[in-house]
């Protein structure tokens, strides 16, 4: 963004003002995440930077909160992490399967009532979470699924499918349907065509939808708070309880791990996005 030499002074000033504002906004966005890192290595129990930490004294840093997270007595994080992963994996699988199949139907030009059906399918994304929570709770309570893993997985499938539907229909919009016809004319049955031709081509969309669904489930707390019993606690629920009662450094250790995880997810999502852009570029 180098300015041309002939730029007038007032525009020059404006330009630097603009850059400064942007810098502050970027700091505002990203800095809060970095506060957590150093504090999670705090040797003391308080959530402020101690004098020792400010002077970079090695004794002021320790891994005790990470140890507490893993080995701590009556510590809930192990169970919570196990539950979170189990629930998120099954919810992702469910959302991806249901969502991809529905997206295939939706992007067919023969689909009747496309508008209203699409609106219904993505409604869980538009309706505020708290309302979804109440509604899903009523259903699960009636079906006897409250406080079960199955109930929470089903709830997260509801919340996750809109993302899969949206990403996969977006991928399919650039999809050349003549390749499936070519496959059919060469004698392939529809299932085989889907597995061998369509799926590999739309895979980036499917996976990135799956990533959205995974993160939605892994991060979801409002609905789980309504549904979960003590046995089904998840990481977000545990963090919620922890934050409500008392901010302990152990939570920061967990938060650091979650940031590392989200960085990994971000990287894979970015790689996928680029790949799918490249593929779409070839198709055009």
């Amino acid at each position: 963004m180098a300015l041309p030499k002939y730029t007038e002074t007032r525009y020059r000033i404006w330009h630097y003002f603009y850059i400064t504002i942007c810098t502050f906004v970027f700091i505002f966005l990203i800095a809060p995440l970095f506060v957590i890192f150093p504090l999670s290595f705090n040797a003391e129990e308080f959530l402020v930077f101690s004098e020792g930490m400010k002077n970079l004294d090695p004794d002021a840093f320790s891994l005790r909160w990470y140890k507490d997270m893993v080995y701590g007595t009556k510590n809930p994080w192990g169970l919570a992490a196990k539950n979170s992963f189990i629930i998120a994996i099954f919810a992702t699988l469910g959302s991806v399967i249901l969502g991809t199949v529905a997206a295939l139907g939706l992007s067919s030009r023969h689909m009747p009532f496309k508008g209203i059906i699409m609106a219904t399918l993505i409604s869980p994304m538009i309706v505020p979470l708290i309302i979804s929570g109440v509604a899903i709770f009523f259903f699960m309570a009636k079906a006897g699924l409250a406080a079960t893993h199955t109930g929470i997985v089903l709830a997260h499938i509801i919340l996750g499918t809109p993302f899969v539907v949206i990403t996969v229909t977006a991928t399919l919009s650039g999809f050349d349907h003549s390749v499936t016809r070519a496959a059919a004319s060469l004698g392939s049955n529809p299932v085989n065509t889907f597995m061998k031709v369509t799926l590999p081509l739309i895979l980036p969309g499917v996976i990135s939808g799956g990533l959205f669904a995974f993160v939605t489930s892994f991060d979801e707390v409002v609905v789980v708070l309504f549904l979960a019993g003590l046995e089904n606690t998840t990481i977000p629920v545990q963090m919620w309880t922890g934050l409500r009662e008392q901010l302990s450094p152990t939570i920061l250790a967990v938060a650091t791990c979650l940031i590392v995880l989200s960085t990994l997810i971000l990287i894979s999502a970015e790689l996928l996005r680029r790949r799918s852009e490249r593929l779409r570029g070839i198709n055009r």
Partner: protein
Amino acid sequence: MSNETKQILTTDGIPLEISLKKAERKNKIKAFLLVAPLLLFLIITYIFPIGEMFTRSIDDKMITNMLPKTFKSMETWDGKELPSEEVFASFLSDFKILVDKKEHGKLAQRLNKEKNGFNTITKKLFRQVKRDKIDETQSIKEQIMKVHKRWRNVEYWQAIKRTAPPYTSAKYLKAMDMYLNEDNKITQVSEDRRIHRILWLRTVEVAFFVTVFCFLMGYPIAHLLATLPMKYSNLLMICVLLPFWTSLLVRTASWMILLQQQGVVNDFFVIIGLVSDDNRPEMMYNKVGTYVAMTQILLPFMVLPLYSVMKTISPSLMRAGKSLGGTPFIAFWKVYFPLTIPGIGAGCLLVFILAIGYYITPALVGGASGTLISNQIAYHMKTTLDWSFASAMGLMLLGGVLVIYWLYNKLVGVDNIKLG
């Protein structure tokens, strides 16, 4: 006409038109069958329960079912003077059934909500019934009236009559701080008890300002990201995407650390001399905390749609505007800005709708003055267990969101929403 022109036939002798229609229908069914599993699943587990929220929110059948005979005989009562002997008799017989089923307590509780004082007089009547003190060969009206003087008061009988309809709008009125008074007129509750209206207003206010802040902060950086060369913008994009993918609770936790009284932000203020060390402002557990945290958390939802729209605007348009004699500001305002309106619409809609239903962040950093309507809904779901009231408020919120969504669809079109 069509009989005269020769119909085109397919090889198996069926008219082409019919054959085509058949194929078309087959394709339609095929497409629909693909969507059906998800559609059915959502209708059963999600759309129906939302409908159930509605029936729950207007349901008032409890007393209707408890006092069937009483309400039947009350139909002819004008409601001005004490009801007739017949009403008293049927009330007693309904009441006896309730005593047998041990449900008279529930009745008292519900009636007491309608009018204070029912608890005592129902208990007294219960004792009389339990000891079989009421002689059914004599005037039941006289005997019930002797149990407590309030049974002689016509207002109590009017209150019972008011509970007769199986449906009620009371929960919706309550959410607006109103109620139906004795004359069936909508009345406001006394001023010191109007809590819900404040919450609704605050929710809209917070959602509105968070949207404005997000727009003011998101627009410049989206513009920067869209105009910088790829290798820089990719790096900066991480600043937007990393918070986007990070857990909401992690981000809320980091704001709790930053904003606490001994926190980093206050430390910074002290260092630059904005506030004195012993006079650190409270930035958490109030509206400030809610605003700051929600703005940061929702900012990526503003930046991403803006960015995806700005990316498609060719830089030569701005150059053309400038070369035609516009100053950079005019070129921006007349050429660039109008082109970004779909992105602005999508971003603002997303942020506003997400903000209006926010629950976690206000509950953690909002304190008493920063909580929103969702917190009230959760409170009634989990603490008071008044599910019908929670449903009523939830549906009002949903109604608001749908109106906004509909407006947006009219103005900009929903198709412009993009993810990342």
